[in-house]
């Protein structure tokens, strides 16, 4: 393909990813006067994690009971086991209030009763704090609301089926990207004053995961290759009660959390015994209070001791809940369950931990800028706000509040950024464009979809909720084996929606990001939150540090840094969670 044939576009702010964070960033950047191009590898506002949210959005609105963002902040820091970046956690909790009110003003439809928003109590929160949209409709409602706002904004061009392959870096500054237009198989070069990565997390690295196919960590790979540091990559949140059995068709596996919020429910081991108390947590008869890291640990320890449920998890029972109570809480969902042959009044279902969210991600300052000028990040793609364990309900709040911040910051940066000339952009894109040229196919090509499945099994088994040195080293070795089997050349015909080529592009990124997680996990010789080492049980105060990871000339650079504190600590009002980690 000649230079004249490459489609070449220009904008102020390029946003990669059109979930909650990306759409929020687009609206804020436009509001600040920028022209925006927002791309997504899938459809706009339909892929990614936002639309998958079942219920809770945590924010200190004080509608249900008096509240203050500082109480939410204290709970967030406590859940993060000492590793939250205080400035980022503060941004989430403080700006989250206006962000969630903004969604309300756009008609998202938060559940209401008695003239105020209904706020549910979720584990780890000191009071009812989580707004939601019935029934299990929070994510779709948030996504639809943002889609509508974006669609009515003339400054925002939005393009689905554009997969960003590489960021353009000129003199250490990010100034655009090369993308693949999946519908045609043709490359596209986009010049931009600033770029925001809003690609979500990495749950696709795991065999059992709750998010979408798009969450393969590609934004982390883009940022790494552009020279940015990642942080906290060892902390992958496993959602403890992902649906396991019997087979359910047409439900997200994290669907049982809302049932727990509204109805409690009891976790039981394979012998029918309650067990979370054995691990030092409040019994289930006192309500749903156990945090995600703690529940994941307890369930997997029961399975390890031979007391798992038949499919290898725990039972979750609602048999003690009367049918009319079930119907009042979940009306139409009860019928959908019946169509799947499930009657909660008659038998329990089986649940097990499932990869759900990434606490780690791109290291940013509080304005969402990365180490690389011109490059910003937002939402789950950002690491640091949630430390070693994320509190239920913080993800959408983070997506919207960080998205709005990233949009404002990127817009301000782009206003003064020197424009990249088109011929220079093509030069910078050269290596990526060359990679897309048809390559001679030597020998029998491996089934790339099968290689991805092997990676997912490896990560689940060796870099899952429980880790040890042997397993992590084995994982590093096997990642190299997979890399060799995949090879450097891109397979496939390169035509429209070529699934082989797409899988290969994804797998290259997934292998890089999997290595980042594994190396960080190997280095952290303690157990904390979502990172549990069999060989180093218990938290070690000396490890109250964050790890950062960068690629320098193709070599990994893993470093530690002190947890970022606010210059002036937040004065947390009395009557809530006491946070002692504050210096």
């Amino acid at each position, binding site marked *: 393909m000649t230079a004249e044939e490459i489609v070449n576009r220009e904008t102020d702010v390029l946003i990669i990813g059109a979930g909650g964070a990306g759409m929020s960033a687009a609206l804020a950047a436009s509001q600040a006067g920028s022209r925006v191009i927002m791309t997504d590898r899938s459809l706009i506002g339909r892929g990614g994690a936002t639309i998958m949210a079942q219920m809770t959005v945590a924010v200190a609105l004080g509608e249900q009971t008096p509240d203050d963002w500082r109480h939410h902040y204290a709970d967030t820091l406590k859940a993060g086991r000492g590793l939250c970046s205080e400035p980022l956690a503060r941004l989430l909790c403080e700006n989250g209030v206006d962000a969630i009110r903004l969604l309300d003003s756009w008609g998202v439809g938060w559940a209401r009763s008695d003239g105020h928003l209904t706020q549910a109590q979720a584990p780890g929160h000191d009071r009812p704090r989580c707004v939601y949209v019935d029934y299990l409709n929070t994510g779709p409602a948030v996504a639809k609301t943002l889609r509508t706002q974006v669609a009515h904004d003339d400054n925002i061009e939005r393009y689905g089926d554009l997969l960003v392959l590489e960021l353009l870096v000129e003199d250490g500054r990010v100034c655009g990207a090369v993308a693949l237009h999946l519908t045609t198989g043709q490359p596209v070069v986009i010049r931009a004053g600033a770029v925001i990565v809003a690609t979500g997390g990495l749950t696709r690295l795991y065999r059992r995961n709750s998010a979408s*196919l798009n969450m393969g960590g590609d934004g982390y790979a883009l940022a790494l290759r552009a020279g940015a540091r990642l942080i906290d990559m060892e902390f992958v949140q496993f959602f403890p009660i992902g649906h396991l059995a019997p087979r*359910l*068709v047409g439900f997200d596996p994290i669907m049982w959390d809302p049932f727990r919020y509204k109805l409690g429910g009891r976790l039981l081991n394979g012998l029918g015994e309650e067990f979370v108390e054995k691990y030092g947590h409040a019994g289930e008869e006192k309500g749903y209070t156990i945090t995600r890291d703690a529940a994941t640990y307890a369930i997997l320890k029961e399975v390890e001791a031979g007391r798992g449920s038949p499919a290898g998890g725990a039972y979750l029972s609602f048999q003690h809940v009367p049918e009319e109570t079930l119907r009042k809480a979940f009306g139409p969902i009860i019928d959908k369950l019946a169509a799947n042959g499930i009657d909660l009044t008659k038998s329990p279902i089986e649940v097990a931990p499932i990869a759900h969210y990434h606490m780690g991600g791109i290291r940013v300052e509080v304005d969402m800028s990365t180490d690389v000028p011109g490059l910003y990040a937002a939402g789950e793609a950002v690491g640091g706000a949630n430390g070693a364990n994320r509190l239920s309900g913080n993800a959408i709040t983070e997506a919207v509040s960080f998205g709005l911040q990233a949009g404002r910051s990127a817009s301000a940066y782009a206003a003064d950024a020197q424009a990249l000339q088109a011929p220079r952009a093509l030069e910078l894109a050269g290596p990526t464009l060359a990679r897309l040229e048809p390559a001679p196919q030597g020998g029998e090509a491996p089934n790339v979809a099968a290689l991805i499945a092997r990676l997912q099994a490896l990560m689940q088994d060796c870099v899952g909720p429980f880790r040890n040195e042997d397993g992590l080293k084995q994982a590093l070795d096997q990642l190299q084996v997979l890399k060799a089997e995949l090879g450097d050349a891109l397979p*496939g015909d390169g035509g*429209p929606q070529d699934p082989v080529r797409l899988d290969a592009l994804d797998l290259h990124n997934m292998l890089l990001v999997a290595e980042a997680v594994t190396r960080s996990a190997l280095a952290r010789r303690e157990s904390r939150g979502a990172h549990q080492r069999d060989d180093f049980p218990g938290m070690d105060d000396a490890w109250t540090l964050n790890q950062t990871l960068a690629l320098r000339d193709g070599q990994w650079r893993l470093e530690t840094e002190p947890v970022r504190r606010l210059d002036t600590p937040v004065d947390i009002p009395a009557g809530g969670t006491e946070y002692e980690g504050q210096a």
Partner: protein
Amino acid sequence: MNTQDKDRTIILEVQRGVGGGPSRTQEYELPEGAAASLLDGLRWVREHLDDTLAVRYSCINANACKECMMILDGKVVYACVARMQPGARHQVAPLPNKARVRDLISEIAPVKERFDQEENADD
């Protein structure tokens, strides 16, 4: 595979092709237990038999992304919620009223969200 297992094998007859080019039908056999939903089956095919089969989806099992619309035995379905019958033979095809991109993938994006190569070139 014994006779009883064979009776429960699911056969997918998948209509394939790129863009407006010629179509052909390819047959895939799914062993018992490989697929509860049509999307399970197509993903099993890609992983075990043929990774060149093109099918689009994001959310896997939640019926949230609405990307996996296609034709199963003459009816429009979401592949993630369409159930497979053990022992059945199913015909699978892309949506008839949308432009085919490849195999089971149709152009489903709203017009305003499509990147148009021609119109958008600014230099």
